């Protein structure tokens, strides 16, 4: 029993678990082992009952990491982004990338720039690296969840979170992300074409530059975007809301929503195409030349303080929604 306790304590110390936690764990084990002894469990059987000290320590270590982290990565302060993450893989990139392809299920993902010359993939809560494909394939960076072979069907385990750190101003031809329930945070993307689709995971984009089309699709996810430049913006959503701030679109902004609302602040473009069932669009400082509105009960309202050219409404169809310009 003493050997077992000694081994366990040594393993815990090796992993530099917090002293308070170690003390608590050791107290628990002293109590439990004593009970076991009174129960007639021999020293040789301790491992089969309680587990091997090394394995125990590493499981406890994983848990202590998770509890240190705190659940929210709400505001992306770069130094804090990687808190609790471990570096998993890194790839060198010389010029740009043909493609960034991310296909995940319930994993959260953060994409952000740094001064490094490499793409680095960080992760936390990763249980099995083999569940994912993470590789460079024909100048494309691929992060993909492999089809499930095993039986982890119910929500017992926490999904891992990925953080991808890329070189500052890395140019990507096609940035393509598909995710079901994980949250996506992108802090700087410089792409020819960008497409993100989520089902229920929220989307947070900032500092995005797209040469051609920026396409965002979601079912119930909320989107928050600031600092967006693109030639064309296409948003389609069902019940999630979206918010755009400081956004410059060269040609058209197109919104297709069922019940989700659209909020625009400080947005410029050529034309707005708005289609909604019951979702409202409300804009302040939205400077576009033309607009087309088709809703059932959704309202469309734009309030501008500067006197500029009036917005010309090319077509307007609505059952009970109001279209107003102030």
């Amino acid at each position, binding site marked *: 029993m003493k050997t077992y306790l000694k081994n366990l304590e040594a393993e815990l110390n090796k992993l530099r678990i917090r002293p308070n936690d170690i003390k608590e*764990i050791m107290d*628990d*084990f002293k*109590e*439990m082992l*004593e*009970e*076991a002894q*009174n*129960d007639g469990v021999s020293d040789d059987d301790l*491992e*089969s*009952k*309680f*587990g*091997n000290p090394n*394995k*125990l320590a590493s*499981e*406890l270590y994983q*848990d202590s990491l998770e*509890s240190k982290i705190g659940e929210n990565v709400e505001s992306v302060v770069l130094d804090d982004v990687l808190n609790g993450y471990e570096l998993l893989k890194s790839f060198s990139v010389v010029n740009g990338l043909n493609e960034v392809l991310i296909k995940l299920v319930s994993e959260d993902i953060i994409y952000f720039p740094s001064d490094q010359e490499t793409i680095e993939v960080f992760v936390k809560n990763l*249980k*099995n690296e083999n569940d994912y494909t993470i590789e460079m394939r024909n100048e494309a960076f691929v992060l993909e969840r492999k089809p499930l072979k*095993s*039986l*982890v*069907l*119910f*929500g*017992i*385990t926490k999904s891992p979170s990925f953080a991808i750190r890329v070189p500052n101003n890395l140019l990507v031809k096609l940035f393509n992300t598909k995710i079901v329930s994980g949250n996506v945070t992108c802090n700087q993307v410089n792409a020819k074409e960008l497409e993100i689709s989520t089902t229920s995971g929220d989307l947070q984009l900032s500092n995005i530059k797209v040469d051609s089309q920026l396409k965002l699709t979601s079912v119930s996810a909320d989107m928050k975007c600031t600092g967006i430049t693109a030639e064309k913006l296409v948003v389609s959503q069902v019940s999630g809301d979206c918010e755009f701030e400081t956004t410059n679109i060269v040609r058209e902004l197109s919104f297709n929503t069922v019940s989700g609302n659209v909020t625009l602040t400080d947005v410029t473009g050529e034309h707005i195409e708005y289609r909604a069932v019951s979702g409202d669009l409300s804009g302040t400082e939205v400077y576009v030349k033309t607009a087309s509105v088709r809703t059932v009960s959704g309202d469309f309202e734009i309030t501008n303080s500067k006197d500029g050219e009036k917005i010309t409404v090319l077509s307007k169809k609505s059952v009970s929604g109001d279209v107003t310009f102030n």
Partner: protein
Amino acid sequence: MNAQFKRGIVELCVLSELVQEDLYGYSIINNISKHLDVNENTIYPILRRLTKDGYFTTYLEESNIGAARKYYKITETGFNYYMELRESWDQFIGGVYEILNKGGKKNEDIFKKFRSRVE
């Protein structure tokens, strides 16, 4: 079997033990290890984890042998979590059995079927 999957099962078992009554560490481990080989997925870290997550609280109680025992008590959140897991588990295992039973419920039936196809 997949380690993650097993961990889930052990988690469910720990919750289930405590749904019935308050227990101390060793008794939980002992009860479960009687039925399952838990060497690979150790119980204590799960117990600790669930306590930290607010599914259990602990209190000390004197015992007639040795030092005081730390008892674990399930909370309301813990109970709800248990119901959720239990539900997914029932659904999952129900589905598995439906598939398995298509070939027959008893080994003899399955074997007979197999033989008749092979011959």
